[in-house]
């Protein structure tokens, strides 16, 4: 391995081991690698809860009103005689959405890989502020505990949908879950936002300031570009959700009327006057839409890196990839209104948002074509990570295309809030981001834990997951186009949708299979930590700096000086070299051009 050893004394003194106790090493750690693992494990545990919830409500949709021993065991008083209650159904879909979007795909994905890869790939000893990083994780941990704790509230957890539109979310008399359950939800999210902001701030500062010598912005791996831009979007949009949550807390507890007006409920007129629920929708989606890019951009970065490494080819159109990340990031902040075409806002705004929304398809198309061209004439190594990366592109295309229908205000009228929407966003950001995360875990597992995951289990995991994902979400487009609204506890209370019942059974069976196979993944993940084959330093023959660091984690990442960078990160199969990869810390040969 060609670890470039610099003879400069510069930076050298940070490389040695500090004295560490169990608590400073594993619990209140300030080391980015340990914090990444903490994020990953917490995110995984939250993911298990989120997926289990989806299995429960899918069973209810497929076999409505049938007693189920699983419900009786897990839901207790919410499933008298094993029959799921309508309120807990709404609570399950609400908390499933919240957990998956924020706790798994934002914190679990970004938190894990930004922390792990930013210092290692840019050549830094650690994050700019290890302390803030630690605080960020522990705030996330507290908000996770609160969110899970809200499940045990007497009147039930929040059940107004993950978008918590007031007045439903503001009035305990409108819904049991809008009492203490919603209060805890809001507090948990406020803490979550604080955690996310501290994390993002740290990522941005680290990428700007701590790049090693030679690591110019145009030599950054696409992963870092994705994390960097994601962090910026987060800094711009999360504070707005914080404001919305704060105002909602004021409306709920201190009698203000930001979002409420003229309400008559349970026989009495409430005092609220002059507020507007539509304002909340604006504030929510000002974060809510960028949020889906906060989820998907890091996955795109991971996939770009994994595709190049496993195709043994440079990523195609490196600069176009960066440009499209920036374009997506910019556009993501001016499209939130496409969630509100039928909210009652001015139809002219609908036209504007249709225009900006459909523009996003352009950088997205560029990315998809660049990935496809990256594997063209490659020498594709079918590692589990690569399978998930290819799967990512597949679901991203399938799910992304239907965005053209939903982003078109005239068409959105009829499919808004139907299963068509569920199919769209699960494929394009749910499943895709999850694939990105799995790809990242399989690829960087040796870097995180110094051991290899079992590839056969990885293959089985991928193929069954891939088939199930399409089996679950592809038919949903069709029941959505048939007019089936989402968030219905049962579709059989009136006969209009009786002919969709069999589709729902098919979907649920796939959902159960797809969820069950994750047990195999969890087994592989946890057991490989202790019994996996020992990893070599650079198992996938990558070019980026993290593979120059020793397998055993040390504080400061490199025992000697930090390697310097002399080339871009995608010199795979470059003519004129003996190996099919040239690491970033290898100086250019005489007369060699840096191509990109």
């Amino acid at each position, binding site marked *: 391995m060609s670890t470039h050893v610099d003879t400069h004394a510069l930076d050298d003194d940070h490389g040695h081991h500090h004295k560490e106790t169990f608590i400073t090493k594993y619990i209140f750690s300030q080391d980015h690698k340990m914090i990444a693992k903490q994020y990953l494990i917490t995110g995984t545990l939250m993911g298990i809860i989120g997926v289990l919830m989806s299995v429960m409500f899918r069973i209810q949709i497929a076999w409505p009103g049938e007693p189920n021993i699983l419900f009786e065991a897990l839901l207790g008083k919410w499933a008298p005689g094993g029959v799921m209650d309508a309120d807990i159904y*709404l609570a399950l879909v609400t908390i499933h959405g919240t957990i998956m979007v924020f706790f798994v795909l934002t914190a679990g994905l970004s938190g894990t890989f930004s922390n792990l890869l930013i210092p290692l790939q840019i050549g830094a000893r650690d994050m700019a502020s290890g302390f803030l990083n630690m605080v960020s994780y522990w705030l996330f941990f507290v908000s996770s505990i609160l969110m899970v704790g809200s499940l045990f509230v007497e009147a039930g957890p929040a059940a107004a949908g993950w978008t918590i*539109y007031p007045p439903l979310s503001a009035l305990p008399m409108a819904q049991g879950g809008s009492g203490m359950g919603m209060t805890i939800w809001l507090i948990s999210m406020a803490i979550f936002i604080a955690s996310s902001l501290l994390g993002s701030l740290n990522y941005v500062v680290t990428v700007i300031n701590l790049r090693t010598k030679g690591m110019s912005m145009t030599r950054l791996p696409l992963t870092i570009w994705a994390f960097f831009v994601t962090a910026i979007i987060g800094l711009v949009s999360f504070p707005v959700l914080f404001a919305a949550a704060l105002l909602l807390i004021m409306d709920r507890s201190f009698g203000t009327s930001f979002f409420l007006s003229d309400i008559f409920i349970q026989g009495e007129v409430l005092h609220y006057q002059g507020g507007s629920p539509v304002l909340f929708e604006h504030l929510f989606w000002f974060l809510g839409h960028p949020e889906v890019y906060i989820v998907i951009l890091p996955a795109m970065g991971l996939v770009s890196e994994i595709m190049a490494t496993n195709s043994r080819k*440079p990523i195609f159109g490196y600069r176009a990839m960066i440009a499209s990340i920036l374009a997506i990031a910019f556009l993501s902040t001016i499209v939130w209104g496409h969630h509100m075409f039928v909210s009652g806002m001015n139809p002219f705004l609908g036209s504007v948002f249709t225009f900006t929304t459909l523009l996003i398809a352009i950088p997205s198309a*560029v990315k998809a074509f660049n990935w496809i061209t990256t594997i063209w004439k*490659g020498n*594709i190594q079918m590692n589990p990570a690569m399978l998930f990366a290819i799967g990512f592109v597949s679901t991203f295309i399938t799910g992304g295309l239907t965005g053209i*229908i939903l982003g078109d205000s*005239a068409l959105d009228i009829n499919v808004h809030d139907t299963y068509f929407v569920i199919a769209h966003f699960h494929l394009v950001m749910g499943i895709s981001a999850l694939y990105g995360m799995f790809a990242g875990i399989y690829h960087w597992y040796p870097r995180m834990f110094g051991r290899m995951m079992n590839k056969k289990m990885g293959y089985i995991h991928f193929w069954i997951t891939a088939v199930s994902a399409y089996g679950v979400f592809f038919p949903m487009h069709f029941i959505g186009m048939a007019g089936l609204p989402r968030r219905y506890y049962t579709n059989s209370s009136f006969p209009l949708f009786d002919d969709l019942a069999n589709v729902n059974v098919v979907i649920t069976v796939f959902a159960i299979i797809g969820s069950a196979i994750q047990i195999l993944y969890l087994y592989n993940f946890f057991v490989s930590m202790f019994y996996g084959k020992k990893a070599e330093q650079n198992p996938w023959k990558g070019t980026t700096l993290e593979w120059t660091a020793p397998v055993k984690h040390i504080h400061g990442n490199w025992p000697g000086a930090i390697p310097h960078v002399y080339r871009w990160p995608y010199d795979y199969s470059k003519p004129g070299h003996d190996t099919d990869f040239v690491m970033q810390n290898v100086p250019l040969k005489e007369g060699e051009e840096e191509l990109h």
Partner: protein
Amino acid sequence: MTAFLTIIIVLFIAIAIWQMVKIFDLSQVGVSNDQIANDKDNKINAYLMLAFLVFIYGITIVSLVFWGDLPLMSNAASEHGADVDNLMTISMIVLFTVQIITQFLLHYFAYIYRGEKGKKALYYADNNTLEAIWTIIPVIVLSGLIIYGLFTWTTIMNVSEDDDPLIVELYAQQFNWKVRYAGNDNTLGKANVRLINYDNANILGVDEADPNSQDDKITTELHLPVGKPVLIKMRSQDVLHSAYMPHFRAQMNCVPGMITQFGFTPTVTTADMRLTPEMIDKVANINNIREEKSIELAAKGEAVLDPYEFDYLVLCNKICGTSHYNMQMKIVVETQEEYDAWLAEQKEFKDSLIK
């Protein structure tokens, strides 16, 4: 019970796979314990990529054949609905074309360029012409869709009150709908939920002093004359609701504290819609399913299901609480004469109050 059995079966399958993998691993001892893909892995997974491509095409075909007649793509019951359906069909054709081609390229490349020892990939980092091509083609296609979409949207949303549409109020509450007709003056009386008074049966908070409200009529079904533009004004008394009328390609949220609106022209009466071949098929299909279910129910000694007859519905499509799933109301589209006769039977607001 079925669900429980399914879970058990799936769990067993999962355990079986896990055990098989373990056995497989044990039999590998002493051979190669490399966890990095080798040529054999590349080959197997490359073929699976092809198989997966077939699977994607397969599930597309199965969905279209079995469930493709479910979408409401050809039987809109409103004037603008035909435009929406047309735009939907064009978009769908574009999407399916792109989907079929890109999925083919992705999976076929994954198959054909599978890794082999000693092979070297092509060092090919950039090509501005290619980038330009796949920037410009989406720009052109999207421009077409955007322009068509915006025209359709503007036509739908620009309801002018000069066309003298029928004014109707749709009133949402947890968990039902009410309708208020404007009466002979076609002007709705002022209303605010603060004026609701259950003691004198003013259930919608209509201003009793407003002269316009005297001839308003409050009903629990939405009747509309065919071929006449209607402008539906929406109110909600408690939380957000959404008035979703899928057969008319119409939807708008009902927002407490403000009045929203949606205008359309119904073109097919309920009676005529029941006679369209698509609807006859759909109803027959649903009734078959209901009969089968009824036999099961009868065997358990429970009440059997009524046969289904088609009716237009307005559904709530914004999460609104416990009974969100069952918040619907019948819409009847009928001839002008039938409509007039029905409306004449309804009580005027001033007579409906308890004095």
